[in-house]
């Protein structure tokens, strides 16, 4: 076989692995969230379907498949149908640049665990997250329902406001590693994680990814008490499930990105080289699960932001803080006070 064909098969297998991982991860993130939040609220949670409720996601999926697919009379038919897909795609593709392991050898074939290690990896992530809002906005608009529309508008305003702080927070690890490639950033954290060197950037980044994924306390686009269900009020069946799926896949994806940028990614001080390199994905998996559990914990703890407070917090606190952090980091690196891992 020619090199090109091998490259194509290699990339296709990794892409399918990432997508299957995300979809399975989605199913069990819903289980994790429901079980864990139940524990936090002194309940038991779903425990009937299978041992410890492990088959619950499959039961839910089966139910949603048989739901009636409703199309509102005044809906923009094409966009209404496309919106769930448009929401899911960014969640599925964003992990393409994040390495989930080092060099491994499979039946004598050497390969790196990670789909594409491009030199604009961080920019790719920023680009994909910036277009992630389209699905929500279009769903809200195409439903021709005022609550859905309000949800869509809120999502837009929220995304634009928190995207800036997110970009500036990412700048800190980029400057420290002197590279925009995700594997370089992970390699730069071999000895110490950036969460310790850049705590402010890490906290800002985590807050903004909660806002970008519409997670509590930033779940205003789907605030039940005010907007019925926000942008997906009119959706049912598998179209509704797609929105649900996109939200949880985004949670997994941003957790993986946070791990790569601030928690050393698949590395754990040399431990990732065990099992012939297969320890790397396991380490990353543990970090992602920890981050997901943290998100659920936050949801169980914090009440939702009021809308004006959300805007004020984004523009008047996070943005100036992340800007100041970026400037200070840059100056300190130029003065050689903190090391740059170039």
């Amino acid at each position: 076989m020619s090199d090109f064909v091998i490259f194509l098969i290699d990339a296709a297998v990794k892409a399918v692995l990432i997508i299957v991982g995300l979809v399975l991860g989605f199913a069990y993130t819903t289980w994790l969230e429901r079980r864990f939040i139940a524990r936090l609220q002194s309940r038991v949670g779903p425990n009937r379907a299978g041992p410890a409720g492990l088959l619950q996601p499959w039961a839910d999926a089966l139910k949603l498949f048989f739901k009636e697919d409703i199309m509102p009379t005044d809906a923009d038919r094409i966009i209404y149908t496309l919106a769930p897909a448009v929401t899911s795609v960014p969640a599925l593709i964003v992990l393409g640049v994040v390495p989930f392991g080092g060099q491994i050898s499979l039946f004598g074939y050497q390969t790196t665990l990670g789909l594409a290690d491009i030199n604009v990896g961080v920019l790719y992530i920023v680009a994909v997250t910036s277009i992630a809002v389209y699905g929500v906005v279009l769903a809200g608009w195409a439903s021709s329902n005022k609550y859905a529309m309000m949800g869509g508008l809120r999502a837009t305003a929220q995304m634009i406001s928190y995207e800036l702080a997110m970009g500036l927070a990412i700048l800190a690890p980029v400057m420290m590693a002197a590279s925009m490639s995700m594997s370089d950033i992970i390699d730069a954290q071999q000895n110490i994680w950036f969460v310790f060197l850049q705590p402010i950037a890490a906290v800002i980044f985590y807050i903004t990814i909660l806002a970008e994924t519409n997670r509590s306390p930033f779940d205003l686009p789907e605030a039940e008490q005010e907007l019925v269900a926000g942008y997906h009020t009119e959706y049912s069946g598998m179209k509704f499930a797609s929105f649900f799926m996109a939200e949880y896949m985004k949670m997994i994806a941003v957790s993986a990105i946070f791990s790569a940028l601030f928690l050393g990614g698949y590395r754990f001080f040399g431990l990732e080289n065990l099992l012939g390199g297969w320890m790397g994905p396991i380490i990353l998996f543990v970090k992602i699960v920890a981050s997901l559990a943290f998100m659920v914990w936050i949801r169980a703890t914090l009440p939702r932001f009021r809308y004006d407070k959300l805007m004020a917090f984004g523009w008047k606190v996070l943005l100036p803080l992340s800007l100041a952090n970026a400037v200070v980091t840059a100056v300190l690196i130029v003065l050689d006070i903190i090391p740059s891992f170039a």
Partner: protein
Amino acid sequence: MTPGTVLFLILALIAVASAIGMLTSANAVHAALFLVINFFCIALFYLGLHAPFLAMVQITVYAGAIMVLFLFVIMLLGAERISLGSTLRWQGPLAIVLVVLLLGVTIFILFSPQIGSQMPVPEVWTAAQAAGDAEFGSPASVGLVLFERYLLPFQMVGILLLVAMIGAVVLTRDELKTGRKRREAQTAVSPDGQTGEVGEA
């Protein structure tokens, strides 16, 4: 044809189709979405030209920020249902004349041997090509060119953007102030203690 050419032709077709779709859609939201598709095609063209940095910036800035803001404004105003009617009808023939002129000039430049051979190629580009493609278009090389060779224009654009930003802030603040004054005036004249909020909408 190489795979690259086939890919280019497919993308070009989508780009032109989405541009035409954008011009002919009566619904403003549909027009905006066609424009987003067009921006994506352009980003993919940049990728094909070994300029990944530019491609990602194109998506982030145009598709991710500007068009999202456009959609926001269109939806907020409900402007997708407003028809412009016949007020812009005179622009059609004028646009056709201008397009024919532009197309003529482009074809003339592309196919005339005298001008074509003298087309200036930027020094940076040839240097990068001589050095090999690996670093060409990478964030580091773009940054170096931007901050060394084109530092002054870069700074001037920065100042222009800052002025525009301050302008936008000042404009909205001014509206707030006059709004408050008008409200105070209305509160003053209304005899039965009504706040005059109705006139503000």
